[in-house]
């Protein structure tokens, strides 16, 4: 396929796993083309062995995240025109700080293990019924948290995370320290700290206070810069530090 740089993209795509090399593909430029369109076109028309991952194509599932010209982003929500260099070049790599399975596909298991380690699950509190404490599970009734209350708004700040791993890929501390829980699990922990229905904060704050927890954050704010949902995990981590201090000094957080 012979295409000039006006009508074609030169796309360097990572092939292999931890060891590998970039392979260059020529892809026609099209109007409103996304990076995911480019990868799909390569896989369908040029090399069926290219591995990548996607599902929803509309920015809901978070599975198509890759590093595009050095920046981690959702490929489905990134137009070629936003990311391409002036001379029509794209470089596509798998997310950093993950184990590469093959080509553009990474293993997310270690990432989600950290959500577990940060106690990123909802711990239901027993609900009182007729003045008596109810059983913790299943909940006897819905607990109403009005949307306009400060408590609900605090929980809302970080709740829209879909676990795409973009922040994990961008974080310097994750790159330095393999044990560091990372921005997404800590943001999840902070969201639950702010959830008035949750009763798991003692264990959660212990879990995020270790040397691999919120104290390891250097506040570089890469996570906040790159989060496609516009969440600010840096502030969530700062919140966890405050919660930890309040707890250590014997105040209720």
């Amino acid at each position: 396929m012979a295409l000039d740089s006006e009508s074609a993209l030169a796309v360097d795509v990572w092939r292999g796993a931890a060891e590998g090399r970039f392979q260059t593909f020529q892809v026609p430029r099209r109007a409103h083309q996304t990076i995911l369109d480019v990868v799909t076109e390569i896989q369908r028309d040029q090399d069926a062995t290219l591995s990548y991952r996607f599902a929803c194509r509309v920015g809901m599932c978070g599975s198509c995240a890759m590093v595009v010209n050095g920046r981690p982003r959702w490929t489905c929500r990134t137009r070629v025109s936003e990311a391409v260099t002036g001379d029509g070049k794209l470089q596509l790599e798998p997310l950093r700080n993950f184990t590469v399975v093959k080509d553009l596909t990474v293993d997310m298991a270690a990432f989600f293990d950290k959500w577990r380690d940060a106690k990123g699950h909802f711990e239901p509190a027993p609900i009182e019924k007729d003045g008596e404490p109810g059983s913790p599970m299943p909940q006897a009734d819905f607990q109403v948290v009005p949307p306009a209350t400060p408590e609900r708004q605090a929980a809302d700040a970080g709740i829209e995370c879909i676990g795409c791993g973009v922040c994990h890929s961008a974080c310097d501390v994750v790159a330095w320290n393999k044990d560091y829980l990372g921005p997404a699990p800590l943001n999840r922990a902070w969201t639950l700290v702010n959830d008035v229905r949750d009763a798991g904060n003692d264990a959660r704050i212990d879990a995020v206070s270790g040397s691999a927890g919120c104290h390891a954050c250097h506040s570089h704010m890469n996570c906040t810069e790159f989060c496609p949902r516009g969440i600010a995990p840096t502030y969530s981590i700062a919140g966890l530090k405050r919660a930890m201090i309040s707890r250590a000094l014997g105040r209720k957080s």
Partner: protein
Amino acid sequence: MTAILFIAQRASAAVLAFAVTVHLATILYAVRGGLTAGEVLGRTRDNHWFFAFYVLFVLAVAVHAPIGLRNVLREWTRWHGRSLDVALALFSVLLLILGIRAALAVYVSPERLFG
């Protein structure tokens, strides 16, 4: 443990922000004013406020520096665990001894030491 170190690091930093400012301002004042060593010592000897200030300063340094160094070493080297903590506790004691010794040297009059 991490929580206590984190709080100690922040609290000592707050003390240092104040103490370093006073320390530098005093040095600049003394140097630009053209005070001799004798005149400086004349003001520091038996000055309880001066001594209390520098004891506080030295305490904050002895808390702050080893914790920061511990964080840097844990992040950039493979040195973790008890031996690192013991080494940095000794470093803290060293800073404390050197600092208090320096503060005493300009606070205590020779007559009180030797007379």
